[in-house]
Every structure is written in C-alpha cells, then in structure tokens.
C-alpha cells in the first residue's frame, strides 16, 4: 500500500531523516517510535504530503506519489501533534472547511461530519468555536478532521496527548477499529500505548531506522539471552557468583517488584538457566523466580537507543 524508499530530509545542515525505507499495509497499525528529534514528525509530515523529502521516493500502490499528486493526498488523513484549527470557526465550520479542501460533495458533508463527530465524541460541541475547546476536545476535532473523506491511510502524531484516561481508552479503541480496514501510522511517547494498539513498529534513532517489524520480531533480533532472577540474599556474593558463571556477561539490579525480594538481570551469551539455581544455592541465596526476559517494549526501546550511543 505505502512504501517509503530511501527517504532523506535535510534542514540546512541538519539531517532529520537518513534513508528511511519501510512499508505499511492495509489493516496494519504501525507504531512510530523514537526519542525527541529522531525524525518521527518529519517522517509523518512527509507521508502526509506537508513536507517534500530531500531525496528518496514514496510509493502508493506501487506508483510514485509525485505522479499521483492530489489523488494520493485524498487517501491520507493526517493529525499532527497540535491539530491545525482556526480559532474563529466552530467545530462544524472547521470540519466543513476541511471537507471543502478534501473535495467532499456538498450534499454529503452534513451527514459525514455528523458521523465523524459521533465517532470522535465531539457531537455535543459542534457549534462551539474551536478556541474555546479544551485540549482534549481539540485533539478529538483534529482526529475527526484527519478522518474526513475516509482516507485509506491515517497518520496520527500523538493522538492521545492531552486526553483524560477515559478519552484515551475510547480513542485507542477507535484507532484499533480504524486499523481493521485502514492503514494507521501512530506515534506516541507512551510505549504501553504503542504496545497495546500497534501490530508492528518502526523505531527511529537519529533519523535512521533502528528496528522494524512486530515486537516479537524485533525482540528476537535483539535478544542476547537475558534472565530475570528474583532472589533474597545478603551482600554482594550473589552478584559475584552469578557473574562468575561461564557465558555471563553482566549482572544488573532491576527495580524490585516484590517486597523483600531483589530482582537481577543476568545477561549471557549462552543458555545459563540450568546453572543459575546452583550458583545461587552455593552463594546461600534463596531463589523465588527465574525466567527469560520477556520482550518488553520499554526495555527493548532503551536498549536500541543505547546501542546507537
């Protein structure tokens, strides 16, 4: 459906994107992750047609979007981090204006706007000027205007920012619903949100793609044999005896999850699961839990960011 090929974007001397190549298919919800300045917003602006790439090309169903022009733009709905709203317009007028820009037939506009307002839960604010809306409502109007014209690809930059917990839940479920028959690209700083909503991930690091795929695929690519060990012991002997095992490259304390017990992260180049209980027994420690580290997005993300320096 959408394919980015070697997209770069330079702002004067700053290289915001360096050869980004990825694909997004219908029915996929792709999470775009990265630290501030990693190039997420630039990538989203380029996909939405707001910015032109310095080099590279974007293909829509195999065709270069520069050739498709307006036909491509009508297939993309974009909600930037701060929704572009005219303060003097009411919600209805704002959406009517965007309907005009997106060439929705005049006789279909009222019904379309009503449906979108109900979907995004702003129907009760239709006649209010956008300047008097709360941040949460502004986000929802922004989402409604991104959905105008039922675009095939929806690009959402921090869609739940500023929403209350109840609204966050409803917007996430709306995104999941949209993901069934649309392609959705979603960026968020809330990793649990990405983990919860997205079917695959693109992780950007300083303008480059650090990882791409499902969480499991990325975890498999970057796993080195890590174990979470929950122990009760006194002194440094436990760490020393675990570190002395053959193949163990490091032992790091993790935040405790159970009172009275310590959690340790054992990193190894080989399978040491069988040797850990013996080492702990020899060190006089009590073992409560030993499990391979699950692919947790937060840890994976931190690891990928650290790998890049």
């Amino acid at each position: 459906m959408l394919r980015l090929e070697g997209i770069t974007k330079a702002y004067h001397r700053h290289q915001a994107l360096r050869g980004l190549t990825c694909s997004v298919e219908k029915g996929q919800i792709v999470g775009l992750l990265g630290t501030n300045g990693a190039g997420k917003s630039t990538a989203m602006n380029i996909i939405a047609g707001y910015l032109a790439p310095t080099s590279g090309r974007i293909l829509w169903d195999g065709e270069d979007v520069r050739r498709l022009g307006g036909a491509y733009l009508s297939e993309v709905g974009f909600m930037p981090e701060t929704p572009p709203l005219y303060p003097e317009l009411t919600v209805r007028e704002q959406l009517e204006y965007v309907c005009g820009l997106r060439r929705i037939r005049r006789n279909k506009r009222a019904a379309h706007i009503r449906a979108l307002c109900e979907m995004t839960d702003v129907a009760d604010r239709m006649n209010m000027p956008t300047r008097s809306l709360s941040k949460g409502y502004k986000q929802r109007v922004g989402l409604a205007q991104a959905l105008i014209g039922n675009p095939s690809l929806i690009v959402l930059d921090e869609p739940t920012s500023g929403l209350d917990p109840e609204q966050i839940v409803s917007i996430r479920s709306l995104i999941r619903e949209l993901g069934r028959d649309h392609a959705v690209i979603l960026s968020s700083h809330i990793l649990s949100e990405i983990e919860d909503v997205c079917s695959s991930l693109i992780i950007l690091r300083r303008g480059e793609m650090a990882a791409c795929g499902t969480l499991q695929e990325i975890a498999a690519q970057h796993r080195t044999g890590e174990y979470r060990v929950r122990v009760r012991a006194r002194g440094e002997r436990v760490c020393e005896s675990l570190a002395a095992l053959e193949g163990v490259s490091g032992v790091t304390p993790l935040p405790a999850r159970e009172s009275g017990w310590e959690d340790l992260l054992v990193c190894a180049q080989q399978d040491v699961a069988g040797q850990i209980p013996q080492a702990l027994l020899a060190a006089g420690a009590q073992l409560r839990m030993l499990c391979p580290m699950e692919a947790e997005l937060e840890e994976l993300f931190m690891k990928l960011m650290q790998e890049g320096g």
Partner: protein
Amino acid sequence: MLGIIKREWRAYFCTPVGYVFIAIFWLLGAAFFFLYNVLAASADLSALFGNLSYLFMLISPLLTMRLFSEERRQKTDLLYISSPTPLSAVVAGKFVAALGVLAASLAGTALYLVILALRVPLHAGAVAAHYLAFMLLGAATISVGVLMSALTENQITAAVLTLAVNMLLQLAEMASASAASPYLPFLPQLLSAIALNQRYAQIAGGVIRPTDVGYFIAFTTAVLLCAGLVLAQRRQRRR
C-alpha cells in the same frame, strides 16, 4: 474555493480587521467626497476616486498581510498543503476574499454618488469607468499583498513589503521622469511601463483600452501565479 473564501471572510469579520478597513475606507472616503465634491460643488469624481486609490494603497496591507503569514505561523497551512485542493485554488480563494472586502467597501461609496445625483446629473458611463478602474487597480494591489504574505511568516514584514512594492508601482510614472541615467538608459521606460497609475487614470477617464485592462489582468494573474509558486517551493524547503 468557496470554502476558502468563506473562511477568509469569517477571519476578516470575526476580528476587527475587516471592520477597521471598511471604517477607514468609508470615513476618509466621506471626507474626500465632502472636500472635493460637496465643498467644491463639483460632479467630477476623479479627485474622490484618485484619493481613494492612494488611501487603498496605504491600507491594503490590512487585508492581505495575514493571508498566508498567519497560516504559516499557526501551522494551519498544513490543511491546504496536505489536501488534494491545488495551491492555485487556495491562492485564488484568498485573493477573491480580499477583493470581496474591497468590493464591499467600494459599494458603500455608492451612497456619495446617490447624494451627488440628487443635485447634479451623473453620467453612468463615467461612474462605471471609475469603479472599473478602481477594481482593476485594487486587484493588482491585493495580488501584490497576497504574494508578499506568501513570502514571509511575519505579518508586519508582509505589510511593509506590500506597501513598498505598491508605492513603487503607483509612483513609478512620477519617478520615471527623474530616473534618467547614462548607466541605466532603459530605466525611465521600464518604470513607465510597470506604472499602474497612468493606466488607472486612462480607464477612470473613460478611455478603456484592451491593452490597459489586459495589463491589469495580466499583472494580477502573474503575481498570483508567483504566490502559488512560492507556496509550492516552500514545501521543498520548509523546516
């Protein structure tokens, strides 16, 4: 395009800008009418419209300075840049909206003519020529403002640039006489060629030649096309 015109009109009249513009135009227009027609007991409209044209040159940045600059600053330009609507339609919509405000302001001056017509007979053709000339000059002036607003993110810069260029275009004829230089022998002719006020005076005087009307239309179209190109180019360079 209708949606763009409607939104621009809302922007003019939801803020004091539109009202201030119309109020200045009508009040000073009334003053000119009183001075040149009532006090002088004259039915000649040249002085009234001539002064209104200079007044419009001075206050036209009020109408145009925020057209694109404000959208850039507030990032609402994203709505039309990432939409299937061509940028030419956006430029045209904004231009027509500003021209509409000018037309509404100019319509108010009809009241002066009604007052005048009660005392002296007016020649319909002469009146129409004045309005046609004013609208053509207004369109050219507004197009310059549209271009300047597309060029910069700062409204004040856009206003100052608009004023400077419009002054040059209005005063070019006057400047051409004293611009003779052995190094730039073509300068007087060039200034004379681009001057708007000579052509304006011809049309307003009832001498409506296709070349003069065509010049205004071509000038306005060319400047608006430049504004469209500036917007398209900026997409490549935007931070």
